[in-house]
């Protein structure tokens, strides 16, 4: 196996094992997702006419804020444990280390989506289909890459909880726009699903490449 892939998988496995044993993040994220949907359910006058219009917005709002929490913890925990320096002082490539962190944080967000999508269907009565799941999963890839990059940047800053959303949210807008369109179409609205999904894939490629290149400079000292 390619060494960088092995490093990335080792980092991701380590993060997921730690999360599985401590259950620090996932239960809180699951609770957050359900609570956000409950609030949205009571906050909007939802009926069969407007559910498909409102549901995509609620989905992306919930996902974006859950993502901020998930990605924010990806590097904060390493800094608190003072373990990141030991990792960076190995000959492993910073890009591979970064990829591992992003994979683990992305999978945590996917776990969150496993709760989000059925509960959204339950509360809003919107369809849960393969096109919807694919659109959300494809968007998660690029969001994870960007979210982890900024999380790494702000991890050593005291006001990281404020800075992370300020840096990340503007660059997540393309995912919300294209993802929103794809989800709307998947829920029955008119429009081109393929075009929106293609755009999401383009954004994924662009941001995964850019963040991989930037990871070296962000992680190194």
């Amino acid at each position: 196996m390619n060494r960088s892939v092995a490093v990335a998988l080792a980092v991701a496995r380590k993060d997921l094992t730690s999360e599985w044993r401590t259950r620090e993040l996932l239960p809180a994220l699951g609770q957050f997702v359900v609570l956000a949907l409950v609030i949205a359910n009571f906050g909007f006058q939802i009926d069969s006419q407007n559910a498909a219009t409102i549901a995509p917005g609620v989905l992306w709002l919930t996902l974006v804020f859950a993502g901020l929490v998930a990605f924010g913890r990806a590097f904060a925990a390493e800094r608190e444990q003072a373990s990141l320096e030991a990792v960076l002082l190995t000959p492993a490539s910073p890009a591979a280390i970064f990829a591992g962190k992003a994979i683990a944080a992305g999978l945590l967000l996917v776990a969150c989506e496993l709760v989000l999508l059925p509960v959204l269907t339950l509360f809003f009565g919107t369809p849960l289909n393969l096109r919807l799941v694919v659109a959300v999963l494809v968007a998660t890839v690029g969001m994870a890459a960007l979210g982890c990059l900024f999380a790494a940047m702000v991890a050593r800053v005291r006001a990281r909880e404020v800075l992370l959303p300020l840096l990340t949210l503007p660059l997540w807008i393309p995912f919300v726009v294209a993802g929103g369109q794809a989800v709307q179409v998947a829920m029955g609205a008119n429009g081109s699903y393929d075009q929106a999904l293609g755009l999401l894939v383009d954004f994924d490629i662009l941001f995964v490449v850019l963040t991989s290149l930037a990871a070296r400079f962000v992680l190194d000292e």
Partner: protein
Amino acid sequence: MSTIVGQQLTQRFGSDLALDSVDLVLDAGEHLAVLGENGAGKTTLLRILATAARPTAGRLEIFGLDALRERNRLRARIGFVAHAPGLYPALSAIENLEFFCSLHGVDRGRVSGTLDLVGLTDVARRPAGRLSRGEQQRLAIGRAVLHDPRLLILDEPDASLDSGGADLLARVMQGRSAVLATHDHALANRLCCRTLVLRSGRSLGAGTRLRVVR
């Protein structure tokens, strides 16, 4: 060939001068103790030598390579024990070391020998967060030698170690070049053949252990 050649190493943090034009030479297989009071610049110097920090000014060669440009190549040959153990508390001692085997690209078969070396075989499956502070320090020392580095940088590794700590350090330093920062002059005298004394970031000069003990 010298293992380390540092010239005019300087580190500024804003307006603070943490390290002021320190010169340093370490020959192959030599053990150097860095002594000094709190805030003298020991940790700053050791972090630069471990390639964890870049000096503001100065030149540093390790194993004949420019340490500022060839950091990645050098990291395979340097082991660093920092102030904090920096372990993963939810992972066992074995899992912590296996993870670092993956990062170094070395065989996981080294883990059991390393645990034996640092005296942690009996608690190998215990989560690192449930080890005592001394055991965590032993695990951090084990992690630093896991990839069999030729140069060891040890920042107050004796902190939290029990009475067997000096023997452990002697074992891991054997056959390697080493730089050891400590407040314990007796330990420095026992493990190192030369000393470098720092005060307020400045070198007060290097000497043999006997001169410093006097």
